[in-house]
């Protein structure tokens, strides 16, 4: 646990505070049944998002490259894309549960704010590649989308079919978001394998982080195939299968931090 008394740290904490404030205002609004609270929450969320973009931009300026070098930096990215994702999914696909996104945004910034070191690190030769930015960006965007889908799945399991007005139901929300995120998850995997071939000579090195990423890709595929077989007949099974995939994704992302016993090629992130 480390409190960062730096400009970067303050930006992270301010973003987290705004996201959490938005989340609580949203929840209270739902309890009292007043829709105005939601509008206020969205405003606070937007303010938090502006701070998150500033925070990511500040880091980029400080390190003079795309800040994707370690988990500290990529989490700042995930924190900054939550808001645009919320708006995009709401407008285009009528997917709701904005409060969930605010909460997820605060959670993903927590490690950057309190756990990971913000020490500036140089790019070692293996990371100096055209694959660096697209590989990480594809994965992070897809992870953010999958997290959003996870919120929908949890809501389906806890609240059933009682969703708000003007939004699609949680089961469809999970499936829709899984479909949006899956090509990016695939892109991340393929770019990683292709990069591995160019950097080390092997598509696949059986490195623990790679194995977990394959496992999470397969778990999402299991979910998609199960849904192709049964459609919406077993919504709770669908949601549970998706959440298992999401757990695998979280382990993939945080693997090196979970276990320093298993070192691998991805030991930098």
């Amino acid at each position, binding site marked *: 646990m480390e409190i960062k008394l730096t400009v970067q740290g303050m930006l992270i904490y301010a973003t987290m505070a705004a996201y959490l404030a938005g989340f609580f205002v949203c929840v209270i609004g739902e309890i009292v049944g007043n829709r105005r609270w939601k509008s206020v929450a969205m405003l606070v969320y937007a303010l938090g998002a502006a701070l998150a973009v500033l925070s990511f931009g500040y880091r980029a300026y400080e390190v003079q490259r795309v800040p994707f070098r370690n988990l500290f930096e990529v989490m700042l990215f995930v924190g900054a894309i939550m808001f645009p994702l919320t708006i995009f999914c709401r407008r285009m696909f009528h997917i709701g549960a904005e409060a969930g996104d605010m909460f997820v945004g605060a959670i993903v910034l927590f490690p950057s704010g309190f756990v990971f070191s913000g020490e500036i690190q140089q790019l070692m030769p293996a990371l100096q590649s055209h694959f660096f930015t697209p590989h990480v960006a594809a994965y992070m965007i897809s992870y953010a989308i999958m997290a959003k889908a996870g919120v929908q799945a949890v809501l389906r399991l806890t609240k059933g079919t009682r969703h708000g007005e003007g939004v699609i139901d949680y089961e*469809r929300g999970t499936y829709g978001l899984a479909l949006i995120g899956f090509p990016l998850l*695939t892109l991340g995997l393929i770019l990683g394998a292709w990069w591995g071939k160019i950097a080390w000579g*092997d598509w696949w090195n059986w490195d623990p982080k790679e194995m977990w990423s*394959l496992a999470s890709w397969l778990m999402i595929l299991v979910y998609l195939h199960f849904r*192709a077989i049964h*459609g919406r007949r077993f919504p709770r099974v669908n949601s549970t299968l998706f959440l298992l995939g999401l757990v695998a994704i979280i382990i993939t992302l945080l693997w090196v931090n979970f276990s320093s016993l298993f070192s691998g090629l991805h030991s930098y992130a």
Partner: protein
Amino acid sequence: MRLNKKTLRLVLLWISLFLMYRLADYSVSAAFLGAEPAGELFSSFAMFLFWLTFIATLAVTVFLLPYRGLGLLTMHLGCAATLLGGLLGSSAAHQYLYGGRIYKGYMQIGEGGASAEVYSAEGEPIDSLDFELVLEDFSIDRYQEDDESLRWELWSGLRAEEEDGERPTVRLDWREGQEIPVPNTDITLEVLEYEQREIPRPPGIIIIHSEPDDMVVLPAIVGREVQLPNSKKTYTVRQVFRGLRIDPETKQPVDDPSGGFRPAAVMEVAVEGEQTEVAYAFTRELNARMRRPAEQVFVPINKPDMETLAVPTIKFRFRRHGAVREKTVSPAEGLTHDVLSLEFMYEDPRAYAAAGEPILAIQEPTPTIKTYESKVVVKEDDRTVKRASIRVNHPLHHEGYHFYQTDYDHEGHTYTVLSVVSDRGMWLVYTGFVLLLFGTTWHCWFGFVVRKKGKGATPGQEDEHAVAE
């Protein structure tokens, strides 16, 4: 019974579901094994059968799926192509299908030298290539570091009493005036003052190991001397060679720093009441070849692009349960590390004995390397066919092989190590990638998300017709 298409598809889907689940399960188990055993597991004969089943299922699926859309078809075709490409590029395929063609190996080439020989990771010769690689130049580029990051690193660890030697060490992220805990102990430390001055960088250090518990380290600087604690032998450095070459005419050693020759030092050994002797310190490789245990080893610390070496003086404050001690540490001029035992913080050694004696090591930081570059020329029958610069992420591709920058001579920067990997199956894997990516994007985005958007539909709505219904 008539096996209709719907039943067949259902059966196929359940088989695929099972296979995907199995593979996910194997992957998770493999993640706990670590990369090397995982690689062996996935390359075993049993797994080969699993892969074949997987590909066969995908192939059958491809023939049954066309009417369900272009995206699904290409996606599954892509998976099959990728896996098939992977099998064709495997070590087993090289052994059984391509008549023992080189699958993977390493080459070591000295600057100005040429080689066609490929070795295994264990250093056993495998085979030679039909062409030669000539190393024209090898170079290293480092990041420019600011003063802050050039300060010496602090590492904490436990010196174990048992035979198994050194325990894992942890690098401490330190700043002046900040109290930090020393891992595995109940001690905290604070750097009160940090100063460093630069001296010309010596070519190396000499490790003198007279008896198991009689060891000292001496900088390779002429005139410096040290006494071994137990045997009381005194070593004085008389000559230092950046590159030791024996002149063929005079038969005398000469210092030739032009490259290609290994560094060494000549010392005088004085034992009280006895005549002085002369001792040579060579680098480890040379000692190993001479097949005699070396009492003294020359460890080069010169780096072609670093002319100075910092000598730090660090004032520490240690705290443990209210006890406070201050200590100033400075390594001998010309050394790149120093070790401080933290034993003095304990009145009773039994307090730490179970875990091992806590130590604090200070060492010169290693600047992050920006690039390694090998400039090579490909020669076939003495004819130059290609020139290339091999860097990490920029391999050379020639005659079905990729050459990767893998390692180099860390001491003199005079040779490079390239890994050689056959490219069989590569184009099939690339084709698989393109198909898989096109398929998933088409199916998930354009098929459902984009195409249906105009009609006010939601993503995945078209998928409501489940196979089982």
